[in-house]
């Protein structure tokens, strides 16, 4: 597992996974947010699956994971970019 994590490509892959997860969570957070304030519309669009209270509960559960996933995605992306820049500079210096 640790060996697998040593590969920059694999770390980049993890960053992308977290990015996708954050994007899905963002969409879900938006839907549940609307499920609180526009509950009549969301309730009918989701065939009764999301009412005001369940939307409210899910909205509470999603905000912290969304922040964590986004942070991980951003940190890995920035780290990857900095590494790529460093490698390019090294190649140029050679």
């Amino acid at each position, binding site marked *: 597992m640790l060996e697998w994590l040593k590969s920059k490509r694999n770390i980049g892959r993890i960053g992308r996974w977290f990015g996708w997860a954050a*994007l899905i969570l*963002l969409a879900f957070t*938006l839907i549940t947010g*609307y499920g609180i304030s526009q509950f009549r519309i969301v309730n009918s669009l989701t065939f009764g699956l999301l009412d*005001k*209270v369940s939307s409210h*509960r899910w909205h509470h559960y999603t905000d912290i994971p969304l922040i964590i996933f986004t942070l991980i995605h951003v940190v890995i992306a920035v780290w990857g970019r900095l590494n790529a820049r460093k490698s390019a500079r090294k190649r140029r210096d050679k």
Partner: protein
Amino acid sequence: MKRTVIRVLILLSAGAVLASCCPSAGPTELGTAEVREYEGENLSSINDFRENSIRGVQHISLDDYKLEIVGLVQEPLSLTYEQVLDRDQYSKVVTLYCVEGWDATILWEGVLIEDLIDQAGVKDEAVTVVFHAEDGYTSALPLDFVRDNGILLAYKMNDVTLPPERGFPFQVVAESKWGYKWVKWVTKIELSDDTDYKGYWEELGYNNDGGIEGPIFEK
């Protein structure tokens, strides 16, 4: 392909955020008739509320309106709008806190619910006051809470008669409780011995106590 999907998702998210910022078709503006300051305290506007009722705005005609007081009472009552108002009237500034995250501080004017139910004669077994609305919405408050806190049945807010959007003819001013306890368009007050009566949102999971200091959700 992936980029297209991402672009579509970003556009959808941006659209949703923009849509939430745009003014929606809310209640009719009431102009300058309302009071916006009371004893040095700034008041919110009647238009600061969001429409979040279960079946949309109810339009009640006073011609056939009756407020029923039923359940565990000596003598069930059926009062007209004028008969409800024909008793001591009170006003106080109370803030409504909605579970959606917004709040509004309003000067409420109304009659004591205690006076209404005492006119009907509350039986000893009664412990809960259940409020029924025109649209089928219900919520309840403990009888002791209603008595001890002088809970009002309001007919005016900021010195303006409640508009239909705000619950005409009557709204419960359940101070220190979440907004879902503030029943609008009240048509019936029922005295009950059910200590655990759950109203519309409480049945779906919001806290039955409804205190703003307590948790929002029932466990």
